[in-house]
């Protein structure tokens, strides 16, 4: 039960280097009348990854509900007695993550044992009740989780606050506030999070698309239609302040501006020592945080802008390829993108690499150079 702080985009360059991976897979996307969505992928894999992604659109971590979704993630993940034992005994594992734009549960089960995961999936989508005692205990665990935050993660959290003010608060939550949350309020939030428009189910593995599609549709169509259809879009403030020397601003993951910023960060990052790029795809304002040793201006002067541009495009392509290179990554990547916007896909992001104009890239490179 981790907060996936920067985990999604924690791109060591080893990841992006594995680019041009050819994976044989077939996919299917299903949209149900209750506005929930299913993404299925059939591929060669020893395990199947079953993921439930609950979008936070309209239920973001605003100041007065800070950490509620994270608390829910903790409570719901352990809400089905005996479930973890069944999954682990079969050679699988259930994990859960909370981020600014989603909660994600993943059941990783050996091929052929998908039913075990579906039991959990179905149970999690049902309404829940909680007790004050459960809330108090998990708030304490969340407090301890906060103590495990690394210096780097804290710096990135600071960047979010610098750039976005109170809209940039981390989804972790404050344990002192969380332990006072009313059980009924949490139950209501869970109901909202599991309504159709918020729900994406993404499955990847050695599966029969038609058969699994029928099974999952039966589970997903039980979700309520939800009051907010289509999504209520809550934008982060446009009042951006250049900040701490690590991060640059992005907007929606499918925008050309974001792609230009990624190309600049990956291109420069390729030439830094001990590079890591932290980026969370989002449908609203976001950040790309670049970590490494070296001077951007010198790198650009030494290598030339075109070299950085070409290198950046190659690495972004490699990063996207890596994010679809195995069943677990692929289910997460497809599912998260779909949860942000039903039209988002890795393929669409790749198209944007070729469309990214040099002028935008230059602007992002300047922003990066000025801040590092």
């Amino acid at each position: 039960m981790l907060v996936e702080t920067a985990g999604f985009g924690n791109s060591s360059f080893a990841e992006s280097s594995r680019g041009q991976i050819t994976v044989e897979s077939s996919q299917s996307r299903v949209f149900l009348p209750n506005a929930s969505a299913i993404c299925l992928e059939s591929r060669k894999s020893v395990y199947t990854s079953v993921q439930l992604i609950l979008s936070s659109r309209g239920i973001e971590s605003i100041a007065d509900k800070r950490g509620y979704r994270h608390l829910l993630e903790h409570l719901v993940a352990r809400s089905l007695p005996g479930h973890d034992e069944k999954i682990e005994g079969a050679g699988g594992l259930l994990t859960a993550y909370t981020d600014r734009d989603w909660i994600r549960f993943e059941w990783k089960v050996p091929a052929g044992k998908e039913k075990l995961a579906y039991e959990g999936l179905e149970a999690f989508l049902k309404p829940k009740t909680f007790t004050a005692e459960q809330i108090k205990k998990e708030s304490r665990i969340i407090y301890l989780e906060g103590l495990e935050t690394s210096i780097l993660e804290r710096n990135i959290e600071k960047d979010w606050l610098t750039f976005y003010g109170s809209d940039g608060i981390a989804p972790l939550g404050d344990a002192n506030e969380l332990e006072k949350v009313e059980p009924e309020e949490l139950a209501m939030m869970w109901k909202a999070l599991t309504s159709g428009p918020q729900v994406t189910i993404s499955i990847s593995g050695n599966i029969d698309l038609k058969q699994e599609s029928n099974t999952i549709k039966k589970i997903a169509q039980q979700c309520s239609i939800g009051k907010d259809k289509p999504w209520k879009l809550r934008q982060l403030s446009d009042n951006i302040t250049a900040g701490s020397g690590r991060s640059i601003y992005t907007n929606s993951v499918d925008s050309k501006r974001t792609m230009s910023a990624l190309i600049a960060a990956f291109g420069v990052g390729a030439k830094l020592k001990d590079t890591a790029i932290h980026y969370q795809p989002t449908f609203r304002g976001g950040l790309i945080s670049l970590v490494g040793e070296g001077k951007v201006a010198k790198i650009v002067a030494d290598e030339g802008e075109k070299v950085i541009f070409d290198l950046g495009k190659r690495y972004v392509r490699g990063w996207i390829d890596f994010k679809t290179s195995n069943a677990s990554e692929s289910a997460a990547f497809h599912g998260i993108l779909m949860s942000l916007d039903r039209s988002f896909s890795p393929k669409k992001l790749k198209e944007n690499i070729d469309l990214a104009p040099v002028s935008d890239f230059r602007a992002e490179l300047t922003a990066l150079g000025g801040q590092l």
Partner: protein
Amino acid sequence: MNLLAFSLLHLPFLNLASTAQVEPPPLLEIADYDAKQIEIEVLVKLPKLTLAQWHVLEQTVWNLTSRTQRYGSRDILRIIKPGSKVRTALLPDAVRLGISVDREELSGGLGLMQSFLTSPSFVKEAYREKPAAESSVYEPMVVPNGISSTPLATPETSLELWSALVRTNTVSISVSGNFSPGEPTKKWGMFIDGWQPKFTGNLPFTYARRTEKPTEGQTLVFDFESQKPDEFAKLVFMSVILGGGKQSILFKTTREKLAETYRQEAFVMPTEKGWKLRILLGVEKAKFTPEKIEGIRKEILEAVKKCNESQVKTAAGLFRGYLQNDISIRPICLGGDVDVVKEESDRLFLRSYYFFKAGRAWSQDLFLTVAESFDAELSAKLLTRIVSESKAHFQ
């Protein structure tokens, strides 16, 4: 994986006092026609080092892979798989160096490895002190000595120490990937034949004595040491029962019952002379007195006594998932935050290191057989010994 060839040459035991020049460092080949790239892993076996030497070595390894006398930083980037890094890890008894290269760069990769070993370059202008662990709270938990920075390491001390550590009988190299059987051995021979190490006696270097103690961290650690190589598989399985997944003893005790941890893990890591099972508890240190630490130990022991067949079976299933289904638990820790069964490069390192450490070939089946041979009674007995005899401290 399609294993087409598996040749294992003799790995001599470490004897730094030996002056006899015998044969070049041995090479293990694992040919795999399905592989998309070639992995090269080198181990440099270490003698017992003083804390001062440890410090110099840590900085040495940090600086080693930036350039060599023959290869500049751009040459290195050209040879290794585009965008990848040179993998390094410092273990209590060995240094790991690893690279991934494309098929056509096998020669280049072997040449680069030979250059890291025999012609390192520690240039004053580029020599940098290893920064404190910033990206991972985990790193301080797995470094051998919790070393902090002091000005002991310089380009000169690094060159001196590295040259003394790298000898024909301390180095082993493993290669896996799509190549013709015998090809890496032949090419490696061309690079390394005739090489004479600069030093052959005992380490002559006595750097200034360190006076400060390693910094005490925030994580409560229980360490159980074993010097019996054949206990490794048993300890690994015990660490799964203790800390693997949400049915584990630690999850159920320190997290669910006591609400004292968010992170609770157990893994096996190497020591100079054997293995160590480490229990790692992310507690609120400020509230932990020695009495409370012993209270935690008592609670874990109580849970161990109640260990039942269902728990052991669940752990065995999870362990199988770890070895066969890419399940992310980590009962084996061989330096850094690396899962040693996930990537081909890390599996090659595991094979290589296990042979070097235990003197026998790594066998997944053997580990699974060991796990399945444990029942609740046997598990409780060994776990009681582990938890009772382990030493507690903060790291």
